[in-house]
């Protein structure tokens, strides 16, 4: 097993999902025109995602998602309904999350920072 693969395998799915969502939110913030209220809300959501393991340092390392990653996440969200959220399992699966990390290596950098804590 490659070291990067081990990083991904060992990480809890909740943290994987947080990393993906953080990159997507950052993309929205830097590309979409929005009201100050909406922008503040998104930035505060990023701030709330930070905890003892997912540190602010790791958060600041995450680069905004690129267009392909964003499209992948949006397609996954389309599977969700009121009762079920299969997008969570899909996006945090080793294959899909590995692809997202390949498209946005900053996700791996953020995981490495987490592991050293």
């Amino acid at each position, binding site marked *: 097993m490659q070291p990067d693969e081990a990083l991904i395998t060992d990480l809890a799915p909740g943290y994987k999902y947080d990393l993906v969502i*953080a990159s997507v939110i950052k993309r929205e913030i830097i590309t979409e025109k929005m009201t*100050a209220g909406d922008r503040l809300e998104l930035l505060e959501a990023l701030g709330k995602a930070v905890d003892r393991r997912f540190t602010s340092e790791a958060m600041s390392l995450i680069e905004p998602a690129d267009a392909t990653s964003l499209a992948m996440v949006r397609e996954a969200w389309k599977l969700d309904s009121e009762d079920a959220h299969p997008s969570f399992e899909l996006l945090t699966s080793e294959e899909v999350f590995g692809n997202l990390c390949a498209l946005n290596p900053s996700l791996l950098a953020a995981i490495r920072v987490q592991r050293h804590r």
Partner: protein
Amino acid sequence: MLNAPHESKPSVVRKRNRPRKYSSEPLAPEIDESELGPCMLALTPKQRRFVLELRYGPAGYGSEIRACRAAGYGTPTSSDNSMKVQAHRVLHDPKVQNALREVGHKIIRAEAFQSIKTTTAIARDIKHRDCLKANLALLDRGGFATETVHHVQVDHQHRHAIEATPKVLERIRQLALAAGLNPAALPPTIDGEVVSKDDNAA
């Protein structure tokens, strides 16, 4: 062994030899189905007959039992007690209840005109003790009710939950820096500014 001769059966003697208050003869006229409402049409013929007997028969103690008998429930020899049970069962059927309500509303609507006539007659009789009441009732319903004026003031201000104040913008800048984003590179916000119609015209 000789069989004992059959004794003649004693005739049925009612415990209380009181004559029935009401005859169980049907009193309701035959009504064409086209004149019945949807709730009446939803009933069985017997239930429908029961409702009509209640509507056209006498009111008061024993009227339900009479209507039950007249509608054909039970047998001619059924006791009042068994008919009481039958009447209770039929009367509490939800379909029958709906039909009774339907028939009742029809009666009220039909009787309303008679009530108007009666009220008018009382209103014209200056010596009648309810003359004033009848006149007031007619005035109210004739569009001359006492006018009341209500002033209702509604203050409604629509505000965005968060406005782009310097404080909010500074908070955004700090959070963006903390998240590793360059605040200067963010696109401008799209908060609008309210311009009143008069200002616009000027």
